């Protein structure tokens, strides 16, 4: 299925549900803080969803639950028809920092998830796939280069490859490019879109940037703090593929303004 078929460009993804959260709540026992209250969310195959909200709105908690790093207090967390009860290989994750290990080459870093799960022999077999992924993100020829010699943007490209090597069903992106300068960031966002389309990936992005959310997403989940909950899900009906030029269009501006108004309202509470 191509990405074009997955969307009717109305912003509503048409693919089959991949990740389903139903009434997920999280209360931290330590201080009885309700970090997340009754969050229900469906990620469809090939869709790009962003979550945005002020700090304390529970988006980090939500991401950790979705990654299988912490258990919810209540609710159902189902990925590919199986409950998420811990980290899984069909969950790919990317962080603010590239976190490449300096004692491994770019390609060795990329096959690390395979090495951890299946051992060194399997990792060696995956080397070819790592080379292909590096080529896809425009890092052909950098296979044997150590991370110290990579720029910030290149390192994040490599960490995209590491996330993709296990062919995950869902990509969880925790502000992946926020440590980059703005020019590289825009560029990497367009790269991310291209990669997601090529792989027909299901992506879930946590971000602080409204512009970034709008330019990348089919749906934007706006969250409110105390307790963390979903305020509204805003569909983005800009055509795909998105281009940076779209950031100057009236429609783009309207969606940004709408989300900003929602976030400002959230601040008062």
């Amino acid at each position, binding site marked *: 299925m191509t990405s074009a078929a997955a969307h009717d460009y109305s912003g509503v993804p048409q693919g089959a549900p991949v990740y389903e959260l139903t009434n997920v709540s999280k209360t931290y026992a330590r201080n009885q803080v309700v970090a997340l209250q009754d969050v229900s969310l469906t990620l469809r195959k090939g869709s790009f969803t962003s979550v945005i909200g002020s700090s304390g709105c529970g988006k980090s908690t939500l991401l950790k639950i979705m*990654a*299988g*790093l912490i258990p919810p207090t209540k609710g159902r967390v189902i990925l590919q028809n199986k409950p998420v009860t*811990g*980290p*899984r*290989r069909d*969950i790919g*994750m990317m*962080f*603010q*920092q590239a*976190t490449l*290990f*300096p*004692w491994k080459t770019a390609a060795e870093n990329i096959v*690390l*998830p395979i*090495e*951890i*799960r299946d051992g060194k022999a399997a990792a060696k077999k995956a080397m070819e796939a790592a080379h292909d992924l590096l080529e896809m993100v425009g890092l052909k020829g950098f296979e044997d280069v*150590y*991370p*110290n010699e990579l720029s910030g943007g290149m390192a994040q490209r490599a960490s995209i490859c590491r996330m993709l090597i296990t062919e995950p069903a869902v990509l969880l992106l925790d502000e992946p490019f926020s440590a980059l300068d703005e020019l590289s960031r825009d560029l990497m966002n367009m790269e991310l879109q291209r990669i997601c389309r090529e792989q027909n990936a299901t992506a879930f992005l946590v971000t602080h940037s409204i512009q970034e959310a709008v330019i990348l997403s089919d749906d934007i989940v706006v969250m409110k703090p105390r307790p963390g909950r979903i305020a509204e899900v805003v569909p983005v009906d800009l055509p795909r593929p998105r281009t940076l030029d779209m950031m100057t269009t009236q429609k783009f501006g309207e969606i940004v303004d709408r989300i900003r108004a929602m976030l400002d309202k959230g601040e008062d509470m």
Partner: protein
Amino acid sequence: MTEFQTNHPTDEETVQETVWEQEVAFIDSVPRSVAMTFVFVVFIGTWQLVTALGMVSPIILPTPMETFKDMIFVGQNLLTGGYMLDSLWITILEVIYGFALAIAIGFSLGVLVGETAFGEKAVMPYLVAIDTMPKVAFAPLFVAWLGFGIESKVALAAFIATFPIVVGTAAGLHAADENARMLFKTMGASRMQTLIKMKLPTGLPQIFTGLKIGAVGVMAGAITGEFLGGGKGFGELIRVAASQLNTPRVFSLILYLSVVGLVLYLIVQWTQRRVVFWQKETVGSYDG
């Protein structure tokens, strides 16, 4: 070619280039070799002056020339396989065994303390308590337990060198940042995998810092052990020379001993550069 219009007259004499000399203090511009030679010459010169003017008794401080002559004598003895070489070899063995023992114990304890909550809670306080004790004071105990042979010296050397290695290892295991830990969790890594594939390699620079401090300590431990527990090592030669008021000999023996210490340190440093090849040099360059 584009012509740039300027308000200045264009005849060559009036064109001024904005090239200027950046001021560098003279003391910072001296090359390393010159600076080192300078300090050496000043040191020897002062030494010569103090002894030549008879400001101190020759028994307390020999002249540089006397010391140099004695160094040649000791060097000949070492090179021709004299009794001093036997002594030096004993001390070198004490240092090697002591360091190996310190690495084995220090690394194990460091992993216990750095990796497990039990170690941090229950073992670390005792280690800190022992570390604050003057460790050379244990020398008579080691002699009583292990005798006057090489064993008691090895024990003291290892005892002194263990603690920096424990601290270095434990600190190294804490060096990995939150992102790396999270990443390993998301990859479903076991505790052992996280330790071996991530925490230990990340902590290697700290571990090597501990090893370097330990390498210095192991030398001090072996010599102190010989001072206090007899034996046949280089420390004993120093003690005997000092008791005979043969100060030039004491000086030259110390200098040869420092070569051993330096070699050990350089071996650790060389290993570090090979193993931790990704670490940027932070100490040793003053090109700021």
